[in-house]
């Protein structure tokens, strides 16, 4: 629980390494990831009055996740540069599993990637993730399922599974 200004800042500070880890896995590029963390921190510190107790870490993940969504939207509206050839693809066969998992994560849509990372990398509960993403737990579950099937398909070099069969 956070019950003082100093405590609030200390708690935010303590969360920075984890936020960086999540952001790095979410967007891969280290500079962009740190930009996201920085904006998350600025926003959190300015919105301190909006924080009504509860889990500060979840709140920070929520801000970061939303900022990333805005960022992707902004990027989609702007003129974009699109790769014709992907050098990474040529090297895929020779790279180790670590590189492959990064690429497999890249192949996910953003909300599935976020759900999976929040659970397996950040160790958050399904309930926390549902709150962070603003969806019911069932939706978190189906995002996880799709993410895992897609990663598997990617690693197996198969076409992505189109639908989750209940």
């Amino acid at each position, binding site marked *: 629980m956070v019950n003082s200004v100093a405590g609030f800042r200390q708690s935010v500070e303590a969360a920075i390494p984890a936020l960086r880890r999540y952001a790095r896995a979410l967007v891969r590029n280290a500079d962009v990831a740190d930009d996201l963390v920085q904006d998350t921190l600025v926003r959190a510190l300015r919105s301190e009055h909006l924080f009504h107790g509860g889990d500060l870490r979840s709140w920070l993940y929520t801000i970061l996740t939303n900022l990333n969504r805005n960022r992707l939207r902004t990027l989609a509206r702007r003129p974009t540069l699109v790769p014709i050839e992907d050098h990474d693809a040529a090297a895929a066969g020779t790279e180790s599993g670590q590189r492959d998992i990064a690429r497999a994560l890249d192949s996910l849509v953003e909300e599935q990637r976020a759900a999976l990372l929040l659970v*397996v990398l950040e160790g958050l509960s399904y309930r926390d993730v549902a709150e962070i993403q603003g969806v019911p737990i069932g939706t978190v579950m189906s995002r996880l399922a799709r993410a895992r099937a897609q990663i598997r398909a990617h690693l197996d070099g198969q076409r992505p599974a189109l639908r989750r069969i209940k």
Partner: protein
Amino acid sequence: MIEKDAAVTEDELHALVDGELPADRQEAVAAWLAAHPDDAERVAHWRAQAEAIRARYGAVGSEPVPDRLKIERVMRQRAPGWRWSAAAAAAVVAAFVAGGTVGWLARGAAAAPGNGFEMLAQDALTAHKLYIAEMRHPIEVKAGETHLVPWLSRRVGAELKPPDLSALGLRLLGGRLLPGPSGPAALFMYEGASGERFTVYASRTASPESALRFKVEDRAAAFYWVLNQVGYVVSGPADRNRLRTVVNSVYEQTEQAKG
């Protein structure tokens, strides 16, 4: 058999992997997996995925926090609005780094700045290629001359400040005045230890502000953008990592000058 009271669902398999399976279902799920090798294999694969993700990114959480993310620094920072364009630009630069040096294409004509801006970028890249090849007279006025910056600022009609790229091993040689598509333009030239040259071009333009765009021609490449009615073009060798670092630095310095 245990499974007769409730068949195990896929959600429960995920819950097992993620440590969210209620205690009273552990036994049933374990029995199910023993009887269903396909599901057991899926669960093993998901666990391996999670391990791979933690192996790949877990260490980031133990890295020292960079200065710009130190809480004291962040608390002194102004409103975050300005950063978005920088973040977007950084993402674009990152995309450039991830891809090939030649295989890039600018798209999204609807949101693209007007033609004048494209002409300006083209002029800058042409000037870059022309003047970097000059051994003896790459520039008109040397960096040491005190009138260099006031002179170019006056002619261009904008307060210019050649970015400091010394941290990147690039020394400002000097600058020159050029005719641009919409008025006079300033070209600052930088040189690195191995003789590689970069130029920063600036000229007033009526084009709206824009995100970073990219152009490559022969072995030279340029990033360009518009900020505060000034078009900037940073050109250099098409070495993606190097140009990216330079562009990041110039971009940040012009952004800061803005506020």
